[in-house]
């Protein structure tokens, strides 16, 4: 169970005349197992919202709780531990490390976990199998397509079985067929009980979600 509650979250970058307000005090609740799409124009604040929910970006004011835990009241190390156990990130640009094989990339979130090497490897291969890439485990990112790299990014996000997946435009750099494949995988993860929060520009992909949060000028519409 991971219920996410945002209360009057505001975020301002910079100070004085150069200050930019990205979020102007928004509140919402996302229940465990929900699939929520976040849409909005470029610069509307949706990526800021995602990074705050991902516990990577402290809000200027407001409170974010996950299962009644005020995550920004936690110390840096506790927050990092929380992130490792609870959140998986899928980035638009995949952000795979080019010098590691696909299996090693997927194993990265497990590097700080006390577990036998063989166990970590079997977890990584299972995650790769989940996205249909087990047979390419030993390839480098440069040796697979963009769609496959995105699937590896998903495998890396789910390898530790976090209850929450945050995806920032996961189909943004893919053709429509590959995009649909990726959405199928993400939808499947939601069916398995994972909470999905996905930023997207594409209304067709937003239609996969149970609910839509539309951000405009730092507020929810």
């Amino acid at each position, binding site marked *: 169970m991971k219920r996410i509650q945002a209360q009057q979250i505001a975020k301002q970058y910079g100070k004085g005349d150069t200050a930019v307000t990205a979020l102007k005090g928004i509140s919402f609740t996302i229940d465990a197992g929900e699939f929520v799409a976040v849409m909005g124009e470029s610069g509307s604040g949706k*990526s800021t919202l*995602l*990074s705050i929910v*991902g516990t*990577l*970006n402290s809000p200027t004011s407001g409170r974010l709780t996950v299962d009644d835990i005020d995550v920004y009241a936690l110390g*840096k*190390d506790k927050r*990092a*531990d*929380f*992130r*490792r*156990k609870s*959140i998986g*990130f899928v*980035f*638009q*640009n995949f*952000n795979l*490390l*080019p*010098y*590691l094989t696909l299996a*090693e990339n997927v*194993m*990265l*979130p*497990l*590097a*700080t976990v006390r577990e036998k*090497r063989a166990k*970590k490897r079997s977890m*990584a291969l299972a995650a790769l199998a989940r996205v249909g890439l087990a047979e390419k485990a030993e390839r480098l990112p440069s040796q697979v397509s963009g769609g496959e790299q995105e699937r590896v990014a998903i495998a*890396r996000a789910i390898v530790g079985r976090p209850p929450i997946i945050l995806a*920032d435009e996961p189909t943004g750099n893919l053709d429509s067929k590959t995009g649909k494949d990726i959405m199928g995988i993400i939808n499947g993860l939601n069916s398995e009980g994972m909470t999905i929060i996905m930023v997207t520009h594409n209304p067709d992909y937003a239609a996969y979600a149970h609910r839509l949060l539309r951000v405009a000028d730092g507020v929810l519409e």
Partner: protein
Amino acid sequence: MTLGDIAISNLRRRKGKAFFVLAGLLIGVSTVVALLSLVSAMKEDINHKLEMYGANILIVPKTENLSLTYGGLSLGGVSFEMQEIREEELENIKKIANANNVAALGPMVLGPVTVADQRLLMAGVDFQAFRVLRPWWTMKGQEPDDDGALLGSEAARLLGLGTGDKFQVNDREIQVTGVLETTGSQDDGLIFAPLAMTQELLGKKDRISMAEVAALCSGCPIPEMVKQISDVLPGANVMAIQQVVKGRMETLNHFEKFSYGVSALVLLVGSLMVLVTMMGSVRERTVEIGIFSAMGFRGSHVIRIILMEAAIISGLAGVLGYLVGFSVTKMLIPLFTEGHGAHVPFDPVMAAGAFLLSIFVGLAASSYPAFAASRLDPNEALRAL
């Protein structure tokens, strides 16, 4: 996959940067090893040369008011009428803590004799010890056996004697087996004869007037040895010939200070190279470090990755640095030393020291970049998308 695997994989990927850090540390460590080895070899060489200066500790009987110069050095003094040291007491010197540092012990009995109506000073010595104590002596002829004599150049001129001639002391006929070349010291006016024979002639059986000690070797604690000898010879006055000792110490200290100074400077430059390169590497990896943070890595995990990378390169630089420094010293040593063939043996202590020093410098220089990396805002990773 562990933090160590990430560190090794990153080093493999960024070979250029790793090589730059390696080169910086390698140059630093090899320079330090070469300098210290060179100075060590030069010290050995200088010590060897200083040994040619002869005695550096003098043992004379305790006395109230005496003044005598000997060998051009102010040594206190000795009187022929005063109480002498018993020869057997000198055996105690072999029992002092630093007995192994005694290169030679030369007892000497002194007394006036009359030869052909001339009053001269006769010195009974142990010629074997005097080879070490008077390395600058050159002579025409040879050292005497049990009953011959060696004349100083001035004594030979005064007596009109040369090698093979004979003279009489107290009705005893003595053959001149050799004549010393002029030394410019009081030795020129002396008659040198075997100790036992001189003691008998002077009526000083088993007694000596003074003794000289050569204790010149690498790291000989001369003041400490003076104290040790004083303790075992309470009836004697033991003195270090300060000029030689101090000169020697100053020379060695000068060399050591110079090498430490240059070593510190080179290490500082090397560590700055490491610092700059590692900072560049951290900046290059901003997004990567942000991804680590997004995956739940703590700041300490990021620090460990960077310090592991630094430790691996530094360890390698330590090993290679010692080997390069050792080889350079071997090549340079003939240019800096002369004569007795100073050599540079493999020194496991220095090898271990070079390894640890390299790791220490590498880690110290990388600690700020590692700390800076751990403080990076993880949101940078998302912003960079």
